């Protein structure tokens, strides 16, 4: 049952958006279709080229048909149900997902017997299906605000379930069931973003203005409002300790701090949050052996070579990036499979770096940047606080995730097991990211004059 405070907020009338007309706000669906055709073409050409380089006839025609049909389906969903949506979001998602499939196919050729492209294609299909379902089913994003506490309960449940399953590669973040492996933390991040947005939209006045003043501009919040914040912080550290998942807890905490700041605009809270995060990370980094070894690897990636044990994963990843140089070795001409078992998941960016070079990798990172910026733009254009916070949160999820994993595999920050959005092998990840894009499409449609507040 949602507390009265939330519902009370909801019943307050939103300021009505100024009326839009088709004449003033172009829908730009034709542009989206053109960009989609380009994204599919680039991916299919990449797929064909990988097949040629591998000297094996691959199923490029199947791949091309699958990708084109998925793109068309998603486009139709947007055209029908979110005609004012940002025309760049969907093509970027298709391009990233398509390139991810190319990289996985390319690594499959180097490691026969561990094929992953087929599964990934099916998961991507499911993801696109869910995208269409969300775009179709969710007419107004503000409906989600009602399910704040349901969301957080579900998120907590999803995060806690893997604790009861055996660890995989040292981390309790998977559920293995009926031959499928599944990472519930991926879904939890959307649910948490919904909860944060809802909670902060409802309480932001209290957070921003109340509380006893401590010193300077820092105010102690009343326990009623402070409670959930501390709970979330403890939760993120708890997840980290129980599941040995530095990445997810970092993501949740970063997400919370960003959304808190967006809602209140109080730098002091950011400072407190970062301080608490640093303390928690330091404690876990020194006390928890799994995390500690990651930090050691980061500080000296070549230590295992000096010990005569050969290069570790991070060293192999750095070698792969370095081998790419400025222009890359060319699709299918790299040796990033040397990274080993996580080459297709956590380290898929190393394949991009080696085979496309700094030029290609920069383009790829800028694609993510564009996706994130379009999320923020939707947030800026929206008028309801919940929508703004949700758009900011979803964009921040993508941004933080890209930074944490890309920074990890290139040695900028300690490595954490996370999936590069759309690019990496992993069913739950690709499905989750399609839902994020679907929500951003819905939000941008509302922002640019579609569904929310309008008729329907």
């Amino acid at each position, binding site marked *: 049952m949602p507390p009265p405070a939330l519902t009370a907020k909801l019943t307050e009338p939103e300021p009505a958006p100024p009326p839009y007309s088709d004449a003033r706000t172009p829908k730009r669906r034709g542009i989206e279709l053109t960009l989609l055709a380009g994204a599919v073409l680039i991916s299919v050409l990449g797929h064909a080229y990988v097949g040629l380089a591998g000297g094996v006839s691959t199923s490029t025609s199947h791949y091309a048909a699958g990708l084109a049909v998925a793109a068309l389906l998603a486009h139709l969903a947007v055209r029908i149900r979110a005609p004012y949506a940002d025309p760049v979001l969907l093509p970027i998602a298709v391009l990233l997902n398509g390139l991810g499939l190319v990289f996985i196919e390319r690594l499959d050729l180097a490691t026969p017997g561990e094929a992953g492209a087929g599964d990934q294609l099916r998961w991507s299909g499911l993801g696109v299906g869910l995208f269409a379902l969300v775009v179709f089913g969710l007419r107004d994003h503000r409906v989600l605000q009602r399910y704040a506490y349901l969301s957080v309960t579900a998120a907590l449940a999803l995060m806690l379930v893997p604790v009861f399953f055996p660890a995989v590669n040292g981390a309790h973040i998977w559920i293995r069931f009926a031959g499928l492996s599944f990472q519930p933390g991926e879904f939890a991040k959307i649910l948490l973003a919904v909860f944060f947005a809802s909670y902060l939209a409802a309480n932001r006045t209290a957070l921003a203005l109340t509380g006893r003043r401590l010193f300077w501009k820092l105010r102690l919040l009343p326990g009623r409002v402070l409670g959930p914040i501390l709970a979330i912080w403890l939760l993120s550290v708890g997840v980290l300790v129980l599941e040995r998942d530095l990445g997810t807890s970092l993501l949740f905490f970063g997400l919370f701090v*960003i959304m808190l*700041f*967006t*809602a209140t*605009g109080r730098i002091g809270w950011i400072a407190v949050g970062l301080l608490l995060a640093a303390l928690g990370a330091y404690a876990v980094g020194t006390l928890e052996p799994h995390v500690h070894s990651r930090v050691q690897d980061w500080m000296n990636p*070549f230590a295992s*070579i000096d010990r005569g044990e*050969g*290069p570790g994963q991070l*060293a192999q990843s*750095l*070698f792969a*990036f*370095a*081998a*790419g*140089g*400025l222009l890359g*070795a*060319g699709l299918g*001409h790299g*040796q990033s499979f*040397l990274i080993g078992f996580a080459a297709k998941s956590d380290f898929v960016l190393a394949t991009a*770096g080696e085979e496309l*070079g*700094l030029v290609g*990798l*920069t383009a790829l*990172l*800028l694609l*993510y*940047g564009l996706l*994130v*910026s379009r999320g*923020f733009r939707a*947030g*800026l254009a929206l008028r309801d*606080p919940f929508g*703004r*916070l949700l758009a*900011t949160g979803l*964009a*921040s999820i993508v*941004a*933080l995730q*890209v*930074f944490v994993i*890309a*920074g990890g595999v*290139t*040695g*900028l920050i300690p490595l954490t097991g996370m999936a590069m959005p759309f690019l990496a092998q992993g069913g739950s990840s690709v499905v989750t990211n399609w839902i994020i894009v679907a929500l951003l499409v819905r939000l941008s449609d509302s922002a640019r004059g579609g569904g929310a507040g309008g008729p329907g």
Partner: protein
Amino acid sequence: MIRYIRWCAYFCVLLLAALLVNVARVQVWESAAYGANPANKRPAIERYAQPRGNLLVDGRPVTGSRDSGQLLRYERTYTDGPLYAPVTGFSSQTYGTSFVERAEDALLAGTDPGLSAFPLWYDLSRGRPGGGDAATTLRAAVQRAAYRGLGGRRGAAVALEPATGRILALVSSPSYDPGLLSGTGAKVKAAWARLNADPAKPMLNRALRETYPPGSTFKIVTAAAALDAGVVTDVDAPTRTPDPYPLPGTSTLLPNAGTGCEDASMAEAVQWSCNTVMAKVGVQVGLEGMVAAAERFGFNDEGLRVPSWVSRSNFDTDMSPDQLALSSIGQFNTRATPLQMAMVAAAVAHGGEIETPWLVDRTTRHGGGLVRRFAPRTLGRAMSTPTALRLQELMVKVVEEGTGRNAAIPGARVGGKTGTAQHGVGNAGTPYAWFIGWAAADGAPQPAVAVAVVVEDASAVRGDISGNGAAAPIARTMMEAALTGGPR
């Protein structure tokens, strides 16, 4: 809230910038350092990703490549591995390369810029031209004759073309199959350990990298020094040498193996290998003259490449007269590689001039276009032409009626010199049997081949007769093969 969303966006821009800067650091600034890390397998994978170019003998490849299906894809194979091992060396994914495989590695591996008309194209496209081929100067018939002649006994044999320096045969015995070392893994490691532990030292290249006391074959150098220095002007004049000859400044008497050396002429001394006469002549030439002569032949030279490096042959530069006397008959500290002694024979055969010995005739691209062609280079003049011609006559006599009759080839003009080198503490070791010589086809203006053969474990018959018995027949079959057998 709008302002704070913008701030969040700026923060994300900051994260993106940090990522891009770091990626540029790894991919541009640190790229070379990471690429050169010995734990990085990429250079090796790239190196073995295509078949290696081949080494040719008589135009036919004696090497090949095998697709191993491993990460390091192509492994080296050898046809007649043990026969050509002293020339080819090995090309191992575990232990690197040796000899011509090493000297021509860039060409064979396909990295030589000469392999491409547009090297920059390969830099840009990241592709590589196929490995080029290297044609050796060897002649299979001569090589095979030498290998069969040694028959697994410890020793070495070298044949040269005196006019050009082309090495026609280079054999070390016993030999090994370099193909055993080609790949990676436990089998290769075991073969490496076994070959290195073998007391017969099959991987030692005795023709280029082992020095032996040259014994009486060195008397050709001493004779050349005496004739050029004018110490001996008439090779048929008696030399007034006692038999035995007391080494100057000592009471040690130097004996001869045979009889008839007392007061012998230089011609007789060469023909019957008189220690006494040549020791005395060496002392008469003097230390300075002997050192200069030996160095003109190539002794004390550390810089010889064929194109693999060759061990330095030694003639001491600071000796007492009695040591000089012993050195002049190829004993004391005088040591020579078989190649060095083949060069001595070749110098006589080529009118006193020594051509740089060389193993790679020409290199070609994978398709056949020429990359480089061997051009003969003069190493220096060892003696005057008249001296060389006079020594040719003396060496012919050795084969026709002297100690080297086993080297005679019917219908050919053959010159030679036998040697038995004593070694070991108190000369206790089984003496090394030597033969150096040259042969010219009947009516040919100059000799077409010069050879040197050394057999370590010669039969226990002491004296010069063992050079004739063990080494001369091998030299004869080699010279026969060079004069008649097999196409060029």
